[in-house]
């Protein structure tokens, strides 16, 4: 059994409780006594049970409006890429002789922040013929289903978009 530290992070505790409670009210729109009581009890109880894994309010995340707009544009590009990826995969799977040439490829990203790296890795997973297997610092191990997909992932244009988001955030 692991050692449970005493609660010393009351800000994080109430923040997590409030998030859980707002999610509860999003799910159950009525405000009668039973609902509110159960919601508050569950939110506080669950937060108390998981109190060793609370948020640490270390670095406040700041972003500019331009970054937000670029991120939304990026998400639309991502949806478009997901659709094309699925069509490509359907073409591969429904052939009689599947034209696959699977393999692992190691690529390096130029992204520096953790959040954009995670976003990039997840984007690789969702888009044409590639899945991120491992990420270590700036190296990504990617599994590709065809050799063309492996060639494309090294110079993928979505990385430029994420780099643009990073740069526009840092020059404030």
């Amino acid at each position: 059994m692991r050692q449970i530290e005493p609660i010393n992070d009351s800000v994080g505790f109430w923040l997590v409780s409030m998030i859980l409670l707002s999610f509860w009210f999003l799910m159950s729109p009525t405000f009668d006594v039973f609902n509110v009581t159960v919601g508050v009890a569950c939110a506080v109880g669950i937060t108390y049970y998981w109190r060793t894994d609370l948020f640490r309010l270390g670095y406040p995340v700041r972003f500019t409006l331009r970054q937000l707009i670029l991120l939304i544009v990026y998400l639309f590009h991502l949806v478009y890429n997901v659709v094309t990826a699925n069509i490509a995969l359907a073409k591969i799977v429904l052939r009689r002789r599947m034209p696959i040439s699977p393999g692992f490829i190691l690529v390096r990203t130029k992204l520096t922040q953790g959040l954009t790296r995670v976003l990039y890795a997840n984007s690789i997973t969702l888009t044409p013929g590639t899945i991120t297997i491992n990420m270590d610092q700036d190296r990504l191990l990617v599994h590709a289903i065809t050799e063309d997909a492996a060639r494309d992932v090294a110079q993928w244009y979505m990385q430029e978009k994420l780099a643009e988001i990073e740069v526009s955030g840092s020059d404030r």
Partner: protein
Amino acid sequence: MTFLFDLIISFLLWAGLFFLFVGTIGLIRLPDLYTRMHATSKCDTLGTGLILLAVILQVPGYNEIIKLVLLGVFIWTINPVVAHIMGHTAYLRGEHHTPSTFFKDCYDTPYPGKEMSGKEDVHA
């Protein structure tokens, strides 16, 4: 107008079903775990997304729409993460892959994944 609306909804439903179907076929036909993961992670994401979109266009009231949108957001974010965890675990355990699998490194390190996974001979 309602006919057009129904047509759009049925198109979305059929497209979602088609992609889920393709994902399942890929799960059966593709040779090893890594290639199967391609089929499941991608096609399930788009298929469920399209079906959820069709349902969102039909339900009355904001409450249901909020719930369905949340469901879609969770699926779209958690699906690649779970695929990544499965692939990572399989890679660390040296899971079997098809003999024709190639290993390539765009840069200078000699063997892809050697120092990343701490495993000596995954590529052989």
